[in-house]
């Protein structure tokens, strides 16, 4: 009986409606926050920050963004990479053209610009659904990447076509570019990710989230109880794109430091979609699990195949792709609610442990 609700009686609706009403969940989140904010910076090496931790945060945020659209509102999108590019290129244009703007605002405004682009590409969702919407967002993906490639303005006419983040500070501490300490870049990504995740959690459990899920579960019934389909879907596109745009801005400013538009191609879109599926459609915590899984799996597999078993790098890569595909099929067929659901089931078992009946 490690995890239980019994005995935790709520004496008011507001207590029952707190963000984490169950004591163990509160401790779980608090524990992770302590690890993330205190333990990790003390222990992690530069390799850890660059290969695991910062990309994990960036992808978690992007996954959360996509999950809002796909998992909560039921609108499919294959344009995540393109939207991340909007975030990254907006951050670049802002940072280079308005140098006095603090990096926090650079990132937030980049998110807002992406939200506007998201709304624009979300407009067709009133008329088209499912497969056709996927194709429309795919078109957005290709269009956006083509646009960033085509027009030199987006890269300040740099001949290489790549963008680089200038060194920027928060309270005198350098947080971007190769000159910044990885710990500082990690905190930048962590701060945005944690705050936005909490906001997302509040949104999805409130009226906005209920409207999204109603549209997802049965759009006709949703309209008949007074939910406006277009406004609700556009809110999902806006919020989702905001998150993805911020993730793109962080990808570029806190993680890679430099980028080309091709980094945000269709492969990235699919990768983020896989993180959503493996983590669990319609779950905030699942978004983190999915991102962790897909960031860690290749590292683990490479260590296993190349390090332990002595396979060639190429063979290992092929095996990795195969395993990846198998996992996606497994999750789609067996557990469409992903790791988050598995975690839930485990919690339900713990609730009655050690007496299973």
């Amino acid at each position, binding site marked *: 009986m490690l995890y239980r609700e019994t005995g935790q009686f709520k004496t008011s609706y507001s207590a029952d409606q707190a963000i984490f009403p169950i004591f163990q969940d509160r401790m779980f989140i608090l524990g992770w926050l302590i690890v993330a904010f205190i333990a990790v910076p003390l222990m992690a090496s530069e390799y850890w920050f660059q290969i695991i931790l910062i990309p994990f945060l960036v992808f978690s945020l992007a996954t959360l963004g996509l999950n809002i659209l796909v998992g909560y509102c039921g609108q499919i999108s294959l344009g995540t990479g393109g939207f991340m590019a909007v975030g990254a290129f907006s951050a670049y244009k802002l940072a280079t053209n308005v140098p006095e703007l603090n990096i926090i605002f650079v990132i937030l405004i980049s998110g807002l610009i992406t939200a506007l682009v998201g709304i624009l590409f979300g407009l067709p969702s009133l008329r088209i659904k499912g497969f056709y919407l996927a194709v429309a967002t795919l078109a957005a993906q290709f269009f956006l990447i083509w646009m960033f490639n085509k027009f030199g303005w987006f890269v300040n006419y740099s001949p290489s076509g790549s963008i680089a983040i200038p060194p920027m500070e928060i309270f005198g501490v350098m947080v971007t570019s190769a000159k910044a300490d990885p710990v500082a870049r990690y905190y930048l990504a962590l701060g945005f990710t944690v705050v936005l995740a909490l906001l997302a959690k509040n949104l999805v459990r409130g009226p906005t989230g209920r409207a999204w899920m109603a549209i997802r579960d049965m759009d006709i019934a949703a309209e008949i109880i*007074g939910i406006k389909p277009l406004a609700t879907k556009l809110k999902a596109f806006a919020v989702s794109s905001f998150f993805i745009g911020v993730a793109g801005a962080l990808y570029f400013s806190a993680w890679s430091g430099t980028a080309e538009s091709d980094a945000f191609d269709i492969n990235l879109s699919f990768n983020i979609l896989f993180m959503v599926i493996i983590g669990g459609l319609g779950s905030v915590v699942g978004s983190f699990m999915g991102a962790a899984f897909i960031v860690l799996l290749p590292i683990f597999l490479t260590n296993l195949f190349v390090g332990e078993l002595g396979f060639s790098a190429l063979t290992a890569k092929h095996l990795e792709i195969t395993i990846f595909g198998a996992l996606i099929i497994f999750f789609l067929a067996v557990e469409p609610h992903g790791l988050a659901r598995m975690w839930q089931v485990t919690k339900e078992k713990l609730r009655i442990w050690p007496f299973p009946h």
Partner: protein
Amino acid sequence: MSAVENPRQISGEVLLNVEDISLSFGGVKAIRGVSFNILKGEIRAIIGPNGAGKTSMLNVINGFYHPQEGKITYKGETRSKMRSHVAAKQGIARTFQNVALFKGMSTLDNLMTGRLLKQREGILQQTVDMLLHAVYLGPAKRQEVVERKVVEEIIDFLEIEAIRKTPVGRLPYGLQKRVELGRAIAMEPELLLLDEPMAGMNLEEKGDMSRFIIDLNDQYGTTIALIEHDMGVVMDLSDRVVVLNYGEKIADGTPNEVSANQDVIDAYLGVS
């Protein structure tokens, strides 16, 4: 939900009037020139054999189908085409013949969706409200507690406390119908349209559902239009009955008048 002063008084005021409604799907004429009205405070039954056009009629009333001909006057206002979310705003709620709940959500959340139409309108207000809910402070938090109280009252009323947090997809059919009624009640409608609320229920469940419908009408003065095949239920519940057959109205009156009508008897026996 607030109880009205003089419950169970049908004033004679017309809440809804449909006039010469015709609706067809390609070649299929689902409704042919049907007229009737619903008085404020009454329980109005719509009956008829399968395919008579009953569900289509409800769909016309709440703006889900747009009739090719005819006029609909609701609360004194005549409208032509109306989206169903606008009808909801104006106080028309409904349940479906085949339960149309949000399967992935709990009972509580399903009922809470019924409160969404109480939200403020307008892009600016909606954006502000969304941000307030994201930080879950001040008015947003208070609003959630207020809505929750309303919904909890309905949960008590329908005796579904035990399934409050259960995902509705896991509930048996009878309970799903009850939750769907709850969601409609949460909208605090003036006109509640029920499409076969007792279909597929056992005797006990039917008894419960009848009780809820009567109480709702009695205590809260909600006007109700219901489609029902069980004649016993229709006799017990309704003030007036309209009978459709092949899309046409063949009778309209009190349950006793209607059940004595020769056309109705013929229609039900399959004589044409």
